[in-house]
């Protein structure tokens, strides 16, 4: 304060003082960030660093000496390359991600286009669509377990009434993966629907009116007006859903435990088994790191694409 008073008395020094005050303010702001950064470091960065470090060991819970054994740092990574079950898990994960994200986006888009009206009924409908999303994933999984368990399945009961075959949904390799996909889509397509619906409602009505006056057909309006408007939203939804599809763990855990055989064993479930059922924490960390790297690269590609889309718009 004394400095400011003095500066006010000598106008020539004002610019320099302003610079100094600006620097002090910046320092204060940086200091203010320290607690948040410390928390972030503790909860995010340190576990990540730990994961990477452990992935270079052969840490086995039952052999404590392996915890700090870095004698063969790439052993886990070379084992992954020879592990058919890991390769299968990546394939299962890819099928799961592609199917769930495609179906969620498709159903979300179609649903949003059908519901794109401004009425009270739509508000109520939106709320009802939120319900699967707000359920804890484990509860969603249990609901589907009940729906698909042959002894009590209402789906099979209905099929029986129609004299149709009543499959053992979770005991057939193809049906088991399909069941997980259906359950995941049921829980998360409302996210796509609500996001796209929000984007649709941001489109100015004048654009539709102008297009109609010019004689544009509905498909043409969709292609030239609607799609460019909602494309960034679709990209963001796809990004979120791809990242989330890698975390379809509760469904696999409750519905199939990765089976029958390894037909539904996605990478996260396989890594979980290695780490928490068998105690091979080092190998599990290696798989987790690889999975993280793949997800990161995929996300980067989508974000770049998204940036380019927004720039073009």
């Amino acid at each position, binding site marked *: 304060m004394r400095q400011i008073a003095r500066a006010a008395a000598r106008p020539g020094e004002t610019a320099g003082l302003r610079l100094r005050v600006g620097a002090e303010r910046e320092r204060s702001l940086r200091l203010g960030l320290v607690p948040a950064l410390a928390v972030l470091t503790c909860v995010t960065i340190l576990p990540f660093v730990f994961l990477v470090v452990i992935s270079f060991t*052969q840490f*086995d*819970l*039952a*052999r*404590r000496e392996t915890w700090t054994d870095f004698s063969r740092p790439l052993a886990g990574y070379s*084992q992954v390359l020879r*592990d*058919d*079950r890991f390769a299968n898990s990546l394939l299962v994960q890819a099928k799961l991600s592609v199917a769930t994200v495609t179906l969620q986006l498709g159903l979300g888009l179609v649903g949003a286009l059908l519901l794109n009206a401004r009425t009270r009924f739509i508000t109520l409908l939106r709320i009802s669509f939120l319900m699967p999303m707000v359920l804890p994933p484990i509860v969603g999984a249990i609901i589907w377990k009940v729906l698909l368990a*042959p*002894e009590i399945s209402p789906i099979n009961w209905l099929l029986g009434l129609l004299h149709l075959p009543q499959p*053992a949904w*979770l*005991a*057939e*390799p193809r049906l088991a993966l399909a069941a997980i996909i259906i359950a995941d889509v049921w829980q998360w397509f409302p996210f796509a629907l609500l996001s796209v619906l929000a984007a649709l409602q941001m489109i100015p009505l004048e654009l539709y009116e102008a297009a109609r006056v010019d004689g544009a057909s509905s498909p043409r309006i969709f292609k030239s007006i609607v799609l460019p408007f909602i494309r960034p939203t679709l990209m963001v939804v796809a990004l979120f859903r791809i990242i989330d599809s890698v975390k379809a763990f509760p469904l696999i855990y409750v519905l*199939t435990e*990765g*089976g*029958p*055989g*390894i*037909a539904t064993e996605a990478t996260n479930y396989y890594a979980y*088994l290695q780490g*928490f*059922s*068998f*105690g*091979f924490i080092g*190998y599990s960390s290696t798989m987790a790191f690889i999975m993280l790297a793949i997800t990161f690269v995929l996300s980067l590609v989508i974000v770049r694409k998204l940036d380019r889309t927004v720039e073009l718009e």
Partner: protein
Amino acid sequence: MGMSSGGRGLRISRRKVLKLVGATGLGSTLAASGVHLLPALARAAAAPAKPFAGKTVRIMFIGNPFWDAVKKMAPAFEDGTGIKLAIETLGFSVLLQRLDLELATGGGDYDITQMVQILIGRTVKAGWATDLMPFIKRDQFDLADFVPGTIRPFSHGGGLYALPWMPDAMAVVYRKDLFEKAGVSKFPETFDELMAAAPKIHTRDAVFFLSENTWHWIWPLFLQSYGGNFFADPPDDLTPTFNTPQAVTSAEFLVEMMTKYGLPNAVNIDIPGSQAAFQQGKAAVHVGGLGVIGLATDKSKSLVADRITFAHVPKGPAGWFPQLAMHGYMIPAGSKQKEAAWEVIKWLTSIEVETAMVKEIGRVAQSRYSILRDPALKQQFTWGGADVGTILQEAMYRPGAGYMAYRMVPPFRPVGARIVVAFGEMLTRQRSVKDALDALQRDAVGILTQAGYPPRR
């Protein structure tokens, strides 16, 4: 073995207090100062001793009616010792994970945990369990009353790392009505007879054969009966032997039985699922541990309770190999209350508690001669007209039960999980039996090497 037997707590008599006070001159000092504490001290000494007052012993086990009964009996024990029991029961798969993490990290959150049969080798080798032998010797605990076969699995290198909680043997529960209807007068004694009986009894409404999908537990019954095993010579030689001719024959037998005469979703039926299916009358024969199949007698849940009886599992060309399960009470190495935990284990394994368990919940899985030979309890071991006590004893306490050694080797768990995968592939025809077992053999070599047990051959 009563709850007070062998207790090491401070038991101060009124006379001892008076002597102590007199000897230290404390009495005259107090008298001189006009303080009259003696009556109060004497009263305290006369009250029942609670050497562990204020201590809480935390227990983690698989959920079982046994623990519900323990909770009912606990107040008397708590009154006598001052120990409070905090019992946590879990599903089996969750229990296995929690045990691994708890024991490996030496957390000390629990004072008594379940020594699971398939984790015995791993737990003892890793030093996660407390040797109970020093406690047993010090307290002159009556180990001779336990059937040796129920103690042997927990003995390693002169130490004893658990006391038996549930000795169990594989047997069969079957529907007498369905067998009689099909004209089959007695339960098959060999696997050939079993396969021959299947088409006569199997129907769409009640399939012939039911088991749980823990194939690493079910398959060895068939595998060993055909002369095979999981490893060459466990526990010394862990070279896997999953694709031998005996392994292929026995797996083909089991797969045929399950796919032709089992439930369509057999691959997904876990322990509770198999119990429920049999209770609902969906199968004629249920193979499993007596602790699992025995629930068919529960009239409150079982629709078939009055139409069933029990029998031994059949024999194969190489002999009779009913699988045996042994679970025990252990004190984790990280426990900070080992003395209190030992006091609780003594109580839980006592004749009083086990007798009450036989009477209250019909617990047949017993390890004490005192209980097994008690004529007053004989009637309690009869279920569905069959003497289940004798079935269990004949299977469990016969000599030469060393064939279960395969189950207690340290890396059993990941190998067992890989066996479950192989049977999932075989039962859903993703792979032929031979291909699935060849893949299992290859992976087992990798798993054993990874766990630090590279095969010798």
